[in-house]
């Protein structure tokens, strides 16, 4: 029974691992931290897995647990040390080696998103993942109206950061 559970968990996580990688990328600044967070999320998911009843999709449930882990872990690390690896902050843009303005803007936007507080970042993450407000509200456990209001405030915030 235990083996079966393990197998079903690992298979599903393997299929959906992109979600976790994307969260790690957003919440950490270097590869080591990325790996650590990935492992931490894996362990939290595994611990919560027996309670996953399948009344939501596995991926939806994953978004919730993984974001919660990233947020609490991020809170902890903020209490201790705040290191900023600016190399890691830059967004991997593979295409043109030359930095034109549009790309520069994108990079700035990305680092502005990375600088948001943990909760706001979770909201933006789900937005980037193309979730609608109903899904966002379900994942984060807030009302749909609240999600909308918050998102508008974040957009406003980002606007002022980019165009002071």
């Amino acid at each position, binding site marked *: 029974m235990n083996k079966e559970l393990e197998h079903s968990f690992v298979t599903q996580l*393997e299929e959906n691992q992109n979600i976790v990688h994307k969260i790690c990328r957003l919440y950490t600044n270097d590869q080591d931290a990325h790996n650590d967070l990935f492992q931490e999320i894996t*362990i939290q998911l*595994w611990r919560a897995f027996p309670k996953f009843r399948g009344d939501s999709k596995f991926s939806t449930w994953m978004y919730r647990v993984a974001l919660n882990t990233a947020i609490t872990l991020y809170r902890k690390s903020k209490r201790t040390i705040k290191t900023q690896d600016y190399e890691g902050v830059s967004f991997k843009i593979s295409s043109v080696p030359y930095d034109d303005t549009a790309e520069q803007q994108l990079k700035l*936007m990305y680092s502005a*998103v990375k600088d948001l507080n943990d909760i706001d970042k979770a909201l933006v993450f789900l937005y*980037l993942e193309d979730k609608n407000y109903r899904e966002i509200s379900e994942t984060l456990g807030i009302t749909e109206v609240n999600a909308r209001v918050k998102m508008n405030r974040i*957009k406003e915030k980002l606007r002022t950061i980019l165009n002071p």
Partner: protein
Amino acid sequence: MDQLDLLKKKWQSTEQELPRLSYKDIYSMLLKKSSSIVKWIFYISIAEIIFWTFLALLVPESSTKFTDDIGLHDVLLIVNIVNYTVFAGFIFLFYKNYRKVSTTDTIKGLMHNIIRVRRTVKYFVIYNVTASVVLIIGINIYYYLNQDLVFQYMREDFGVVNISQERFMNMFFAIQILFGIVMIALVLLFYRIVYGILLRRLHKNYKELEKIEI
């Protein structure tokens, strides 16, 4: 907000750049949480030996001259050799534990190794505290039995004057006792804080593993 939407487009197109872990990678993650703690135990033990060595280098010359004069040179040398050997032995054990924990791939095996790590750390702490206590008490008994020599060399090496031997010795032992207690307390505090935290985390992992195993 068009910039955020641009980012969104970019965000979704970078999917294939993400790392990809295999089934086995993920499976072993379920087991490996303890290895980083055990790694820290290993690192800290090395840091500790470096720290003590540095501290030994900082001892002023007058103080080593005093212990040499009074005839403790050979004894302290032997104590040092024994101590470093035991220390090196423990570091080796910690390293072995670390290797073991990071290559274990069954939950039962990991639980077994965690118990072993905890036991090694416990012996390490007991050894260190006992060794410090025995050394401090031993040296002071030696001083007590050789009070005349202590007083004589204190006058020669540290220039103690204008005080009777009896009064000086009373003061000397009072300071020694106080110093000894403070030292032991610091050692205990250090182990309690550093290894205490790590061992508690290991214990927590152990409990979690136990839950999985049932």
